[in-house]
């Protein structure tokens, strides 16, 4: 389980878990679960487009997730946020369907893009994933204070000259960045459960933001490690384990909160 190609899988998956835990914390704090679903899911079209044009998948994913994220932010100024997110998502998926039909990609490829292929990670994916992860962590470190303030107390942030809309755009760009690096590893559909399940559980255990963030990363790591180990031994898809373990964490968090009488951060 820990030899040869599996080392790469463990490394990359751990990087992904750290990023998902960090970015996911803000996703949960801002209640942006839909956006966290839409951006990675829609970026699938970018991968399909990249295979049609014969360029690198990660470029396609990056372009589509960034355009999608900024599109949501821009249109969201004038319309209902969830409506705009839904429409941007279906528009990207529609394009994805077109690219797929034009390139006639075969189904297993689609499956691995949607549900990920941690165990099939190649060593040359390690460097770009790590590089993007560093950028992502830097961006979060840089945005930490204003983003936190703007997410929790929007009006106070505005009074201090932190534009809520600008913060929203920054946040969306970070989600896009995180999607780009994580989608090839865990798939468009399951990065989402990692980004929502772990931080939501963490926030029911502690109300302190810094501690919740650390806990969120820890839970994401444990989730991913459990999922890989289980997938390696049972041969079932890793996405299934990521999805169910994340949901179990959330259930655990809710139970804890009910037992403690709701002292954690209410989400």
């Amino acid at each position: 389980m820990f030899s040869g190609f599996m080392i790469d899988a463990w490394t990359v998956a751990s990087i992904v878990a750290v990023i998902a835990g960090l970015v996911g914390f803000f996703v949960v704090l801002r209640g942006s679960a839909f956006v966290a679903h839409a951006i990675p899911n829609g970026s699938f079209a970018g991968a399909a487009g990249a295979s049609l044009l014969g360029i690198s998948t990660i470029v396609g994913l990056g372009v589509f997730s960034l355009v999608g994220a900024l599109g949501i932010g821009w249109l969201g100024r004038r319309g209902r946020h969830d409506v705009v997110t839904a429409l941007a998502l279906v528009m990207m998926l529609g394009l994805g369907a077109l690219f797929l039909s034009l390139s006639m990609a075969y189904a297993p490829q689609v499956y691995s893009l949607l549900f990920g292929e941690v165990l099939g990670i190649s060593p040359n994916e390690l460097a770009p994933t790590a590089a993007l992860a560093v950028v992502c962590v830097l961006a979060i470190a840089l945005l930490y204070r204003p983003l936190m303030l703007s997410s929790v107390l929007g009006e106070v942030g505005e009074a201090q000259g932190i534009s809520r809309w600008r913060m929203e755009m920054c946040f969306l760009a970070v989600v896009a960045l995180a999607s780009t690096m994580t989608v090839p590893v865990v798939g468009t559909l399951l990065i989402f459960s990692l980004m929502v399940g772990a931080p939501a559980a963490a926030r029911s255990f502690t109300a302190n933001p810094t501690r919740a963030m650390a806990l969120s990363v820890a839970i994401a790591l444990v989730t991913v490690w459990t999922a890989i180990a289980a997938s390696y031994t049972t041969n079932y898809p890793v996405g299934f384990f990521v999805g169910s373990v994340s949901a179990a964490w959330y259930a655990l968090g809710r139970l804890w909160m009910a037992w403690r009488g709701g002292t954690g951060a209410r989400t």
Partner: protein
Amino acid sequence: MRGLLAGEPLAAIIASGFFSSEPVQVALAVGAAVAIVSGAVGVFTVMRGQSFAGEALADIGATGGSGAFLLGVGPLWGFVVMGIAAAAVMELIGIQRPRGRDLATGIVLGAGLGLAALFLYLDATHHDTTGATVTILFGSVFAISSSTIPLVVALGTLALGIVVALYRPLMLSTVNAEMAAARGVPVRVVGAGYLLALAISVALAAVTIGAILSTALLVGPAAAALRLTKRPGRAMLAAGVIGMAATWLGVLLAYDSYYWPPKEHGWPVSFFVVTLIFIFYLVSGLPARWRGRSRCSRDS
């Protein structure tokens, strides 16, 4: 652009054999039924800010579809049963504040997608049908068999019936939940009933026209309609009309696209319909914008 072109002399646009082809007839009929139901349900979805629930239920329906495939029963039942089950779980987690509600939806969606990954994997290994993934997730209007039409109509009527029966209390609790509760409306029960209607309508749409189009038809026409008129009843009508127009034009363009490059290979219907709906949505924002601008200039 192409959507606008179709308004020109139709004879030049409609390829020969369009109306006599059976798959086209079925696609037009089912598309219209789904568009009308989605339009009516969608107005409430948009007003209540539950687009994410609609999208999640469509994706989770795919879990049911792949599970049904595994058991060898009809996919429609898989979509409907799984959709209702997921809606029930969302309701049970039951967080009423919008932020928390999206989170609960997300958790259910994540778990559902995990199950979908497992089912699709089992489908592929047990039945050697790798194409199932694409069919279940993307659907195809042209692949509906005409025998499902009665069932589609029945389920659509059921969803519409729930919305109509709940119309007044639902509207009241959507606009102002506290006032509705004060007037004795069981807000939570009404919300659950509405979620049931949403689950049925989304499952219906997802299994016939695919998960992408299901969300598009649910949210897009209703959002566009609500930008044109503030009256919910009128908005429902307008949403149905917009949805039907987009679906029919999309089917027509997809039919025509067999003659476009690459040759002998049509473009997917979902792409056309989604693009048309997106254009409708963008255009629907223009009147309010003009009005707003003229008001601004008058004020200044």
